[in-house]
Each structure stands twice: as structure tokens, then as C-alpha cells.
């Protein structure tokens, strides 16, 4: 091909490419909850190249003629599930699709979620269809340290395609929810002793890592050293008040970043949680009042929120049916039990993004953020409202 022809072809191809695969979108909503300021009546969200271009009232925002237009009664940022096991705990619930808990050893911080996550698992799609565009998922409860977690968008053919963070937190469990498959710990006190010993080992490892000394690399110690350096966060699943205090004792001894998870009895020790500045990923509102969570209350989300403790919703881990919960539904029940609709929407979006440290990209409808949007035909939290559309990274996925 002659040089001249090639020169003409290239810009032509570029032009075609930019129009065909990066369709620009305008989403109109009777009510648009931006989570950055008051809801907008008759609002418009413009999306360009996968990012939010502009948000405002329809009277001020002109929709360019080449934009594809979607309309909905209510528009919100894509919802965030702050703690799940989807992609690791598959929907069939057979050995072959359960990768959320490895029972060969009760402490395995080296296990990475990205090495197990199945981006095409049906439950990931199930969450996406309910407006959830970002999920913090990975190893589940059931071991002292079961492994790592990751944050991803709920779309993509591979784990790499829409990963936001490959190794966000380490999943800890305290209390009675530790699997019986392990020979130890058999008691609460033993559990804490084992954790302390391991973290003391990790302190020594970290000292070596930070010195000029030679040291042999240990994957588990690497992860715990990252935790001690504040590069990772401990996600401690714990329900009973005395176990929550054990988690706090452990955190204060070793000084790592910690998010409390589940915490059915948090309402008994609100001051202790608040004064230390912990965030809480609250158990599903509809959690069954059994086991360690037997004292769970549907009003805890509201109580923590009122106290000013940062909270987010989770689908959590389910061992049977339903195989996953849906944070949209859990938020509804929390809203009806003291939290209120607008607060619940905030917790589902921007508050969750802040808690997970990803609010620079998701959680609100603001120019420059990822174009993740959920559309509804009514109050998003109402039982009889349907999700009418979902957009992730500017792509219509429902």
C-alpha cells in the first residue's frame, strides 16, 4: 500500500473506531441521585468514553445529537456491594465451585482472590442485574485468615478486565464462625493467641524486609507485612460484642488498618467502635438471627449511622439458599428500620466507595468518575420497583 493511502486510512479508521465502540450515552432521570449534592429533578447524565462527562438539570444540559438516550424514573450511581464472595462461591454450591474457604490451614493470607475469581459466574451477573456495579469480593469467613479480597466491576470476561484493586483486604474471622475443619483453634482465646503469634512473626519478617539483610521470601508473611505497613486492611468478620473487643485489642496491639464486618452486636459497644474511628461493613439486614448473629437487629445500620460511624452494606456469605444476598434488598430493610431511604442510598453508593477507598472512581455521579449507573422504575428500595437499566464504564450491560 502506498504511503499516501495509508495516511488517509488511519484517521478514517480512528474516526470509525471512536464512534462505533465508544458510543456516547445520555441518561435522563425524573429524579437523579448524584450523591454529590441534592437530587436533581429531571436530570441528565452525559457519558463520554466510559466516564461521566456532565451531570445537571435537563434545562441546562444539552444532549448532543449523536448521544444514545436512555430514560428512567430514578437514576443513581451504580450500587456497591462492600463485602461479598461472588465469583469465588459459585451458585451451584458444589465442591467444584466453592473457592471461598481453603481448609488446609486456618491462617493463609497468601491466598489471592484474583487467582480464584470467576468473572463469568452467574451470581456476579445476578448482582449486576440488580444495579450493583462494583463488588468487594474474595475469600470468605471461616478461617482465622482465609485469604485476600479484591474489588472489581461486575462485568468483564476475565478477572483482569475491570479490576479496581487486586488485593484490597485480608479476610479475618473471629468467634464461632471458624470452620470445624481446622484442628485448631478450638476456643476463642486460642484463636487470639494464634493470631498474635503470627503477627509477631510478621513484625520480625517486616523488620528483615526493611533491613539490608537477606531473607527468604514467604508469601504469607509478605501479605501480613503489607498489612502491618498499612498497605492492606484487615476485614474482620465478627459478631459477638466480646469478640469485637478482641478484634479491637488485636488491632491496637499491632496497629494495622481494620474494618469491622458483620458485627451483629455492634449496638452494645457503639462508643468503643466510634471513638477508635473504625468503619463497619454491616451484616445483611435480613441475616437470620442464628449462631453468632443470633442477637442481630434490623435497626443496627440506623444506629451506627446516627452515631456517625461509617458504614456500608454487604451481601456477605451464604452457605445454602439463597446463595447470595443482594445489597439493594438489604438496604431497603435497613431503610425501613430507621435508616431512611436517602441515607440508605448514600450508604449503598458514596459511603461504600469511601469506606473501600475507591471514591475517586465510583460512588457518585460527578464529571470524571467512571460511568456506572443504575436505573429504576420507582423508589429503588421498594420491593416492587425494578431495575430497568445498568451501565458500567459507559457500557449498557442491562
Amino acid at each position, binding site marked *: 500500500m502506498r504511503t499516501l493511502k495509508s495516511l488517509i486510512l488511519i484517521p478514517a479508521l480512528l474516526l470509525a473506531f471512536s464512534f462505533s465502540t465508544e458510543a456516547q450515552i445520555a441518561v435522563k432521570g425524573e429524579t437523579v441521585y448524584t450523591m454529590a449534592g441534592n437530587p436533581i429533578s429531571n436530570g441528565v447524565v452525559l457519558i463520554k468514553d466510559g466516564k461521566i462527562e456532565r451531570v445537571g438539570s435537563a434545562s441546562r444540559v444539552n444532549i448532543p445529537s449523536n448521544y444514545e438516550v436512555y430514560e428512567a424514573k430514578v437514576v443513581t450511581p451504580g450500587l456497591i456491594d462492600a463485602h461479598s464472595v461472588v465469583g469465588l462461591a459459585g*451458585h451451584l454450591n458444589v465442591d467444584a465451585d466453592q473457592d471461598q474457604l481453603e481448609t488446609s490451614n486456618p491462617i493463609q493470607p497468601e491466598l489471592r482472590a484474583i487467582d480464584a475469581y470467576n468473572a463469568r459466574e452467574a451470581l456476579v451477573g445476578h448482582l449486576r442485574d440488580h444495579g450493583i456495579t462494583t463488588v468487594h469480593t474474595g475469600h470468605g469467613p471461616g478461617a482465622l485468615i482465609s485469604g485476600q479480597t479484591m474489588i472489581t466491576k461486575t462485568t468483564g470476561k476475565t478477572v483482569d478486565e475491570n479490576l479496581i484493586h487486586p488485593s484490597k483486604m485480608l479476610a479475618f474471622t473471629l468467634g464461632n464462625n471458624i470452620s470445624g475443619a481446622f484442628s485448631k483453634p478450638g476456643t476463642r482465646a486460642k484463636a487470639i493467641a494464634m493470631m498474635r503469634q503470627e503477627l509477631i512473626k510478621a513484625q520480625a519478617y517486616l523488620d528483615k524486609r526493611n533491613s539490608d539483610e537477606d531473607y527468604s521470601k514467604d508469601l504469607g508473611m509478605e501479605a501480613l507485612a503489607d498489612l502491618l505497613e498499612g498497605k492492606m486492611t484487615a476485614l474482620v468478620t465478627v459478631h459477638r460484642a466480646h469478640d469485637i473487643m478482641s478484634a479491637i485489642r488485636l488491632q491496637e496491639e499491632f496497629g494495622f488498618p481494620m474494618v469491622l464486618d458483620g458485627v451483629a452486636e455492634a449496638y452494645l459497644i457503639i462508643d468503643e467502635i466510634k471513638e477508635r474511628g473504625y468503619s463497619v461493613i454491616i451484616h445483611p439486614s435480613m441475616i*437470620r438471627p442464628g449462631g453468632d448473629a443470633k*442477637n442481630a437487629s434490623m435497626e443496627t445500620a440506623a444506629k451506627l449511622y446516627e452515631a456517625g460511624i461509617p458504614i456500608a452494606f454487604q451481601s456477605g456469605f451464604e452457605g445454602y439458599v439463597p446463595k447470595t444476598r443482594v445489597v439493594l434488598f438489604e438496604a431497603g430493610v435497613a431503610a425501613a428500620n430507621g435508616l431512611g431511604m436517602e441515607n440508605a442510598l448514600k450508604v449503598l453508593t458514596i459511603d461504600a466507595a469511601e469506606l473501600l477507598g475507591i471514591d475517586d472512581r465510583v460512588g457518585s455521579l460527578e464529571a470524571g468518575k467512571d460511568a456506572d449507573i443504575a436505573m429504576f422504575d420507582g423508589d429503588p428500595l421498594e420491593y416492587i420497583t425494578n431495575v430497568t437499566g445498568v451501565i458500567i464504564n459507559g457500557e449498557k450491560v442491562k
Partner: protein
Amino acid sequence: MKPIQSLLLALVCALLFGVNGFSQSTPQAFTGAQIIPISGEPINNGVLIIEDGKITAVGNENTRIPRGADVHDMSGKVIMPGLVDTHSHIGDGDGGDRSATLHPDVRIMDSINPRSESFKRALAGGITSVNVMPGSGHLMSGQTVYLKLRKANTIEDMLIYLDDEKTIYGGLKMANGTNPRGNPPSPGTRAKAASMVRDLYIKAQEYKAKVAAADGDESKMPPRDIGMETLVEVLEGKRIVHNHTHTHQDILTTIRLAEEFGYRLVLQHVSEAWKVADEIAASSNVVGSSIITLDSFGGKVEAKDIRNSNGKYLEDAGELVGFHTDDGITDSRLFLRSAAMGVREGMSREAALEAVTIANAVMMDIDERVGSFEEGKDADLIILNGDPFSVYTHVEQTWIEGQKVWDRTNEEDRKYATGGYQIYPGQIHSHHEEGGLK
């Protein structure tokens, strides 16, 4: 009347009617609310009259309020019949054990704890009548029990008797699919399961024939067999079979067996109902389908194709459809949510309301007593602070046979709705661990 006489009368009344605070014979009138009678269109600003534990009138604002009635102004509220749950595991009961997989002789009635906190959970959700069943780990795990959640000291205080002799107060639980599978004495395959059930019903037919042949002559009667007696009640249509079943082929097997032996059948769970809705509707042996709402499919292979639109598919096919809690799979406190999720997936409001009231009553043979507001029916009602299908609505009061049995304004009652510290003992019926044979 002289003051002293009035005082004496009041004292006598107080003694007679004791703790209930009002006389059973004093009519109670509920006014101002939207009344959803189920038997007809919702009535705005309606009037509901109850007396002696029964409904005596339901109508618009012009309905005559009897002289001396206690009038409850329920303006802004919604009143509907107490909810009926066709499948629950509240009450801490159990069924058959590991010694067999067919237990027609076993009654869950003999195991239920009437003081179980789980009954409070049901009252907090507006449930007034419930079919409590043994689990699905057996082909036939035992006789179920129909309960009215009255204040009770003994299980007998709660039973809903279906016959004058007071011998039948429940159905018979059966199951197919993977839950009852296992090592002997359990079946290892679906076909084996069906053949074991057929074998048992053939024996029951023979037993029934012997009883008929004896024609009342005690000396010619077969030896009493309480399992066989139960199965004869099934064959005679006096006792409904509640059959746990999930996949489309298992649903059809369930129907095939019911048609072979002529018994009346309620399909329970029916996860793949959407695939065979017409076939279900076509069988006259199927009394109705009792379905569950789940927040996701999966959790077991058999539930991978479950849809919350099952209610819509069955309604469209003209099939009687009800919801159940399967408590603790779903929470009795949120029973109305199950029906609301059916509406979300395309069911009509009317069918969804019936599906937690009269449809379920039909599936328990108690529709002449409960499930709708009609004169002469039991005064079982719930008072809501909004639309039954709104997430923001709470059950405020639950009444059974004219007695208020749960009141959200009372802190001692309210805590059972919200949960909290040391309210529930932490024992939730878990299907995952059930099945005496596993």
C-alpha cells in the same frame, strides 16, 4: 343504676373477663382503615366488626356498628386477614429419624415446643395460621401440623382440627429430588425413590381394602398400623400431601404418583414451576402450588433455575398459587415481602395478596375458616401502617380469633420484629443440616 351497683358490676366484669381487658362478647369495630377483605375489592374507609372471635360484618363506612362495641379508629391503616403460611419450620419440631425414609406414622405434633420464640417471629410478620412441617431429608418425613398461633400452653391449644373427631390437623410431608437421596434405607436414585413411594401406597390401598371388607366387624379388621391409617386418610382425600419438589422432572413425577393413587397434592417450592406451569395446572390432583421467594438462584443444584417469576407463570396458567416462608430459609417477619417480590416479577396484586391468605388456606383445607374477611370466619387480622407490598410498611398489630396477640407499640412485642440482644435463642432450622439420613 346506683353508683355502688355499677362498681359491683364492673368488678364482676373484671373478674369474669380477666386479663383480656375486654369481654369476648363485646363487639370490636375497626373503622377508618383501608380494608382488604381478599373476598372482594379493597374498601377505603371500611368497617370491620368482630365478635366472639368471629367476623360479623365487613363493609364500607355505612356498616352498622353494634351498640356497645369497642371502636378502634384505624384511620390511615390497612387491615387485611391474618397471613397463612403453607410451609414453615418454626416451633423447634422434628420428624422421622434415620431408621427409615418413609415415616407416615410420625407426627411433628409430638415434638413442637409451643413456647418457641420462633412463633413470635411469625406473629411479628402477621402470620396467624401455619403449616409446620418436618424436613425434606426423607421421602416421607411425617405428618405436618396446621397451627393457629394462639396464646398457648400446650400444642393442643394451637391445633386446627379438620374433622369432628379431632384426629386430623395437618397434612403429610413428602419430598423428592436430591434432599431425600442417600445410602440405604434412603433411595439412591430418582427412580428408586418413586418405586419406594409406589410400593408403600400399594400397601396402603390393600390396607384400606381390608378395612372396607371388614365392614365394621372388629374381628375382621387388619391389625392397627398407624402409618397405614395415615395413608388411608391420604387416599381418602382427608389429608393433603405436601410434596417438596424442585426440578421440572421431579415436579411431574410428584404429579404422576398423586394421579396414580388419587391423592390430593400441594406442590412445595416448585422451583422450576415456570417450565411446567401448564402441566401443573392441568392436573386435578394438584390443589395448588406453594412457592418460595429467594434473593438469588442457586445454593443447591436443584435451585439453580428457580425464578421469582414462578408466581406469575402459575397465575398465568390459571393455577392456584401461594407463597411460603420455609422459615428459616426466609424469615417469617418478612412474609409479605415474598408476595411483594412476586408482584415485582409480574404477578398481579390480587393474586399476590391471595397467595399469602386464601390460596394458602385452600391448600390446608381451612379456607372456610380463615384467609378472607367474610361473615362467620375466624377474626384473624393484621393491621399495617401502609401498603402491604411496600418495604416501608410494618405490621402493627396481629389479632387471632378476636384476641390481640402482637402489638408493635408494646416494646416486649416489638423486639421480636426488629431483633436485638437475647431475644432469639439462635437456633434456626437449617435445611443444610436436616435430613435424618445424611
